Each structure stands twice: as C-alpha cells, then as structure tokens.
C-alpha cells in the first residue's frame, strides 16, 4: 500500500504551487531552505489530494460540521469576562492597560 501511494503522488505533483506567495498570504516568513523543502513536500501532498477529482460530487451538499446544529445562541445577558489585567497577562508588550504594537499611522 505504502509504495503504491508513494508512486501515485510523486507522479502527480502539482506544478502551479508558489510556496513563497502562499506563505506571504499566511504571514509566515520562511528561510530559503524552508521555501525549497516545503515547496517540494507540499507539491507531493497536493499531488496526492488530486485524487479527489476522481469522485463524482454533483448533487452532493458540502459538510461543514458533522453535527447538524444551526444558529446556536445564548440568552442576551451580560456575563463576567476576563478582567483587563488578566487579558494583558501574557502580552509581549503592554502599557497603560493596553497592548503595544508597532506604529501603523504617521
């Protein structure tokens, strides 16, 4: 089974996959080594998942959740929430009860 799958996904590696472009969409700074390695490895994975194209999915509804529940709401009553100092407890940079971030506007 293993060898069989191996051959299958190596033969079908995706060609139009630009790892650098996608990593930027995901806000992940990669090293050149990572770009090369992930590009090759994910090319193989994408080749493998191509097999879904064999399945006839016409007239099939998508499943987002296995449990069919919709519009779950609770009573609109104020509940206690995290106090400010608890919310800031793990902040990498804070001041005056706020998170400190790089300057966004001049």
């Amino acid at each position, binding site marked *: *089974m293993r060898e069989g799958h191996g051959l299958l996904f190596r033969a079908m590696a995706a060609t139009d996959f630009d790892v650098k472009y996608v990593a930027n969409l995901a806000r992940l700074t990669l090293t050149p080594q990572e770009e090369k390695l992930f590009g090759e490895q994910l090319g193989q994975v994408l080749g493998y998942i191509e097999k879904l194209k064999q399945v006839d*999915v016409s007239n099939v509804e998508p499943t987002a959740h296995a449990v069919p529940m919709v519009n779950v709401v609770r009573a609109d009553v104020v509940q206690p929430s995290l106090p400010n100092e608890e919310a800031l407890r793990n902040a990498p940079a804070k001041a005056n009860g706020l998170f400190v971030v790089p300057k966004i506007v001049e």
Partner: protein
Amino acid sequence: MLNQLTISELSGHLAKRQCSAREIAQSCLDQIQRVDNSIQSFLSYDAADTLAQAEQADRALASGITHQQKPLLGVPIALKDVLAVKGQPLGCGSRILEKFVSPYSATVVEKLQSAGAVVFGRLNMDEFAMGSSTENSAFFTTRNPWDTTRIPGGSSGGSAAAVAAQECIATLGSDTGGSIRQPAALCGVVGFKPTYGRVSRYGLVAFASSLDQIGPFTKDVRDAATMLGVISGHDLKDSTSVPEPVPDYVAALDGNIKGLRLGLPKEYFIGGVDPEVSNAVQTAVKQLEKLGAEVVEISLPHTEYAVAVYYIIATAEASANLARFDGIRYGLRVDGPTPAELYGKTRGAGFGAEVKRRIILGTYVLSSGYYDAYYLRAQKVRTLVRQDFLKAFERVDAIVTPTTPTGAFKAGEKTGDPMQMYLSDIFTISCNLAGICGVSLPCGFTSQPKLPIGLQILGKPFGEATVLKLAHAYEQSTPWHRERAKV
C-alpha cells in the same frame, strides 16, 4: 504500587481507607522520577501542588464524601498540553506559546476538578496537535514505554505514554484525525474519541474546529467509561456541544453483547497492513463472535479518499485558527518595523516545520481560485464519507477495524516524508470526518519486537455506551489489558 492500579481499584482502596490520596499522588510522582527521564511524557508538573490537591481530596474523604458523589476523588489525572488550566502553563508543544499562562480553565478541567480528581502536569504532544509521533513537539520526542527506540504515536503521545508507563492513573488528550486512538494503540492502552459535540471544547486550543474532540486515556474500559461520564455533556460555552443527555456509561458494561451486529469494512482489510496486526484483529473479531455478536461484511466505499479530504479540511481550519498567533496579544513576539513584518517574523520563528507546512497548505486550499477545486470539493466528499457510515449503521451497531496499519515505528523513520506520516492515520481519520465515536483498545502484540496492537471499535453518533459495552466484553475475556510495559 498504587500507581499501577486503575480508577475503579483506587476508589475501592480509598473508600476502605486502605490508602490515602496523598499516597497515590506520591506513588505517581515517584514513578515519574524513576522513569520519565527515558519516557519523557511530561513537559512539566508541579509536585507540591499535586500533593496539596491530594491532601484536599483526603480531607474530602474524611468528611464523608464518596466516589458516588465524586467519581474521581483522589485520582491523579494529567493533561495534554493543549488544555487550559487557570494559572498553569499552556504551550501546545510550541515555542510560540512557551511562556503562556492560562487565564481560565477548560470545561473538562472544571468537570474533572468537581469530580474530585487531582489534575496535574503538562503532557508532551506534537506541536498544536499536528503529527502522529510527538516528533513535532518543539521540546523533545516522547518514547514508547514498550520500546524506547520507538515513538508513542501522536499527537497525544505524552498522554498515551504516561498511562502506559504508569506515571499517572488516566489522562486526557484530543483527537482530530486519530490523535487519541493511534497513540493508545501504539502504547497498549485504552483511548476513546467521543462523538463530535459530546464533550465541550471550551478551553481546548483549536486545531481543526469541526473535527477536534477531547477524550480519555485509561488502563481499562471501565475507567474510560468513568472518565467519559465525567467529561461529557452540553456546555453553553461551546456552541457545537450537543444538548444530548449523558447516559450512565459504567452501567452499560454488563458483558451482554448477544445479538449486537458488527460490521467489518472490506476497505480496511487490505494490503499494506502488517500481517500480525491483521491476524490479531481477525482473532479479536472471532472472540467477539464467540461472545455472541453477529459479524457481517460492510462497505465504506469512500475510505480511500478520507486522508485527502482530511488534509484539506484540517489544514484549512488550522490556517484560520492559528491566525491568532500573531505576536500581538500573547506568546512570542519578534519585532519588525511594520505589523505585517512583525507577524511574519513572529510566526516564522515561533512555529515548527509541520505547523508551517499545514498553515501553508490550508491557506492555499482556501485561496482565491482554489477554494472550489480543493476546499469545497473536500467538504462534498466529506458528506459522502459520512453517508457511508450512516448507511452502514442502518445495518450494524458498531464497526470493527485495526486502529493502525502497523505497530509503533522507530523514531526518525518517517520525519523526512510528511505524506508517509499522514498515511499512518489512514484507519482513524474517517471517524472524525463523519463525527462519530470510536475507541482503541489492546488486542495483542507483535512478536519481534513485542509491540502493542490496537483494535478500533467505531460507533454511531452518541453510541458511546454500545462501543464501551463491546470493548469491555472483549477486554474482560482476553488477557491483553493486564499486560504492562516494563519501564
């Protein structure tokens, strides 16, 4: 050696005052001292706090509280590093959360505490639950107690190894594509993945929100039933938890499985499975038949697509869930001149290779131009996978399969090839896609070397009681659950 006993044995001892909760906690801490250098299940634990909780349990026992009222009173239970305990570290096996301290507790943790458990320790895992071996932990690889050159499985590898090495009495893990059942099989313990919605996910760090469930690792099926009864139930803090009553799971363990119908999916008994695994599972099926179950062949025709569906849906959901780790509100921050550069550098430095690969894959399958071809198509095939199971469950009460194709593999054997690692979850993944429940329990050993083999029993949505009943009847008629790893 109190650490070697089960929850049911210990509650008997405590009720008769044959031992104290403090002695139980101390024997677990002693075992950790003795073996955890080689097993490495624990990322951290607080011995003083553990003993203080145990003393509190002893005071409760002295005041007349019983195990009828608090089923886990005085029982040491450790947690996968993905569950929040107020005031304790929560790291998900990742550098990006290395110094994070939880501001609140998970619902399951509150439930364990109200049931009297001594909740302690952070157990090793693949980073953000992404992996099948604990080799993706940012800190170290946990070792299989049956053979320390091998991995314990993953992602809840620390949770499985800690029970197998008798470092605590039971643990909790999480299962997104097999992360409870696969390590339970490879370490020779019982691991239960409840139906999606059975257990609240509040306080569980999200990996793939439509697939994740929390569940127990125990030494036997009775303990699994006890743990499941404690952690199950509807929770207003998790909108995907289901308001379904929680039956008495322990009461379901009556040994009577006469007339229950078991399905053997022909797609799971194929080439590529180690013959020793296959033989052990076939023998287990015969044993279940001998106990009165009826066995029929069934078909789950979309099985071969499950791994592909999973790696689209799970990575897509992960890419969205892990967007929160951006260096602004908590966790690691690597500074940059603009917010975008700060995000990129923080995430580049804080996440390990597998997490990055999955975020990239998930981002890609959701990106403009590829959404329909990958993500939407995968969701449709997920419907077909789920329908396969629902159709099968019209004919059978449960489905029996191997949990994994082989016993535990060697550390380093699959790290260079993510696709091979993904395929080790081939028998466990469909259960999460379908949202049903399942257990893995020991059903034998390979011969050279001696490694545990897992039997998987899958049940209907909210069919936990039937699965536990079958697992318990099988377990009690076989010797496997009494075997312990020599550590």
